[in-house]
């Protein structure tokens, strides 16, 4: 797809807006349809478009594999860490009531943190999977 000027220009133009929409879905998930799962997939799809337009090596310079692995683990740890934090504060695992000054504030904080963990893990795992599939088809010798 390397010669398609129009696709490249339009795609480049679209990528930031797709990322912005992903962030909107992530943080507006409390009030409208959305949440970590959808936001992660939408955010990852921006990188998928970049890969289709510029090749997997170019995208892997922006989002190296080791960073994605770290982020994927960090998301799960953030989620489980919220549970451990509520355990430490004397409540049940993943009972957010104790996290804030009063129960509803704690619930809000807990939900935002947990959704952030979900979003990080889903986005980075989907990107990792796609990069792995795409890099497998690259010609030999160019591997990093």
């Amino acid at each position, binding site marked *: 797809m390397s010669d398609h000027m129009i696709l490249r220009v339009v795609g480049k133009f679209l990528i930031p807006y797709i990322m912005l929409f992903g962030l909107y879905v992530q943080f507006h998930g409390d009030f409208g349809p959305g*949440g970590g799962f959808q936001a992660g*997939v939408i955010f990852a799809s921006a990188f998928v478009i970049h890969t289709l337009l510029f090749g997997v090596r170019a995208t892997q310079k922006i989002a190296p594999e080791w960073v994605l692995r770290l982020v994927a683990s960090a998301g799960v740890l953030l989620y489980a860490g919220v549970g451990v934090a509520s355990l430490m504060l004397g409540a049940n695992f993943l009972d957010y009531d104790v996290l804030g000054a009063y129960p509803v504030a704690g619930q809000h904080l807990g939900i935002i943190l947990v959704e952030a963990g979900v979003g990080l893990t889903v986005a980075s795992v989907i990107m990792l999977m796609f990069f*792995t599939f795409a890099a497998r088809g690259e010609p030999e010798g160019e591997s990093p």
Partner: protein
Amino acid sequence: MSGLGIWNYLIIIFLMMTGLYMVISSSNLVKKLIGLNVFQTSVFFMYISFGYITGGAGPLFNENVELYSNPLPHVLILTAIVVGVATTAVGLALAIRIKESFGTIEEDDLHKMDSSL
């Protein structure tokens, strides 16, 4: 049961059986995975149909609404869809490894290669 309900469940069973047929009869491994996905989607439809209430609103809180669809099936299916794509990716990765090891992803050819299967 109303006509719409019967139509709904009949189509769900039809889709489920199409998926099953694809898994059993297709020789291509990627096609089998598509069949699994079709089967999976029909199960999603079944859950969402159970949660639906005629005349009810979607599960977004609103002062003026009394009747909501059941949010629980939505939650279960929402996560199941994302888990579904993750497991499909593992299946596709296995298909790629089979292609690299045996040179084909047609099940008939694989059976011919290994008579013990």
